[in-house]
């Protein structure tokens, strides 16, 4: 191993160290943190309640029963909030650039992206996982699934590909914010909009939008494609069965594009020097 590599901390070490630092900082204001954590848990709870309110009026939505909808909702929300836990620091980049504090991350002799991922990490981000996994477990228990080994493996696999797709989107958010500094609200369309869309069966959105969500922004691979296999539903688009398992391919491609966008954005970035 050459000496320079031995002295520069690795990506994971940098990332975990940044995260620990931010978590300790958040815990300095304990009362505030506790209040915000309770509130975060409730907010996620009301969104789940909304799904239940809808199903108090109808038996099925887009061909999916309540149990199946809970599974879809649970996988999307769990994948999104795990990705939020891991990567959402990119959202604060615009504010950092406006304040001139992005330079502090650039001059440290460690990778920039892991520091950005961990930026402003707070333990509060664990809270929405309660209702996400609550819905997921409720769906798994009550949905009439004909369980096979393949289907059982597909459940954690769905979460992993979901986290990967959302993660790549967070990288795009970072790259976009370096280019256009006050764009965080516009990026909500892809991040929180993606979270919202994937929480309901994609069949609700009609053929054109489904095609776009498969081949345009591949949100269909967050949970929709593998879920069709797990729940034993045919694909309304009639895509070949291979697509149910193609998530990692699309996620990897998305990460490739996102990372090169990030590198391009960093090259474009001019510090004010302040």
């Amino acid at each position, binding site marked *: 191993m050459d000496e320079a590599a031995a002295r520069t901390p690795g990506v994971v070490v940098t990332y975990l160290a940044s995260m620990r630092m931010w978590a300790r900082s958040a815990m300095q204001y304990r009362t505030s943190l506790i209040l915000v954590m309770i509130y975060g848990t409730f*907010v996620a709870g009301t969104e789940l*309640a909304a799904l239940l309110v809808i199903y108090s009026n*109808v038996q099925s*939505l887009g061909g999916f029963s309540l149990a199946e909808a809970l599974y879809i909702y649970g996988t999307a929300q769990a994948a999104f909030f795990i990705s939020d836990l891991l990567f959402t620091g990119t959202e604060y980049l615009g504010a950092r650039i406006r304040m001139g504090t992005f330079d502090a991350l650039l001059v440290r002799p460690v990778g920039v992206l892991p520091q950005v991922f961990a930026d402003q990490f707070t333990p509060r981000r664990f809270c929405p996982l309660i209702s996400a996994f609550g819905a997921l477990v409720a769906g798994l228990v009550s949905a009439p699934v004909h369980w096979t080994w393949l289907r059982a493996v597909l459940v954690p696999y769905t979460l992993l590909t979901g986290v990967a797709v959302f993660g790549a989107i967070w990288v795009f958010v970072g790259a976009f914010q370096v280019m256009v500094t006050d764009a965080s609200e516009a990026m909500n*369309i892809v991040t929180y909009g993606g979270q919202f869309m994937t929480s309901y069966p994609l069949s*609700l959105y009609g053929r054109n939008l489904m095609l776009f969500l498969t081949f345009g922004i591949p949100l269909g691979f967050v949970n929709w494609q593998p879920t069709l296999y797990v729940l034993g539903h045919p694909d309304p688009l009639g895509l070949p069965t291979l697509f149910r398992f193609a998530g990692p391919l699309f996620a990897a491609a998305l990460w490739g594009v996102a990372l090169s966008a990030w590198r391009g954005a960093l090259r474009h970035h001019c510090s004010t020097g302040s």
Partner: protein
Amino acid sequence: MIVYALVARQTFRRYVTYRGAMLGGMAANTVFGGIKAFIVTAIWRHKTVIGGYDLRDVLTYTFVAQALIGPMSILTNNLDIPARIRSGDIGTDLFRPVDFQGYWLAQDFGRAGFAILGRSLVPFVAGALLFRVRVPTDPRVWAAFAGALALGMLVSFALRYLAAMSAFWLLDEKGVTGFMNMLTMFFGGLTVPLVLFPGWLGDVARALPWASVILVPVNVFLGKLSGAGLAGAYAFEAAWAAALLALGRLVTTRARRRAVVQGG
């Protein structure tokens, strides 16, 4: 009175300078409206009328609700009181020869006025172009809608003011304001239309102040309320506004006694 009008105008102009955030918010409100429209369309496929609303009614509700996110400040508190308490600037506000609550109300109306122009029109027009919504043709309906909106804004302000004033005691208001925003989103009927709330939950939600924020203005917009019904709806909004603003005055008096401003 002229002072408050000037404060409102100044705030309006202050917000005009932050156009970037406005564009982003406008785009997000529009796209979320589209997603919600697909969801309600799927729900109404099973029944033609739910809670007195047909599909066109609920699509109208969806896009009017999205359009009201900005003016009613449904997702955020938008009152600078806590930040000014932390920085000490609140001392200046308390000394001003105007009513403290009235001063903040005037600012909020200035902000809301800008939001109507900047954030409301595009989500609604986009919704009207892409989906089948109802647009009132009778100018009297528009006038009645403006009245319901103004009263709804009073209720919205009164609620957010109470949450923001908690900073006099807590310094960090985020838990309280966040909780208030959550209640407004859910009981205001933004997360899911109020007409879908089942049985007793629906009865409770329709009696709470948050019904003034989206449901009552939309019902007026849809022309469902006129004559005595309209007067009743106005009375409902006005009663909540009066009660909550009165509570806000009580809190203000307490806060004034509590505030210790260090000169320097």
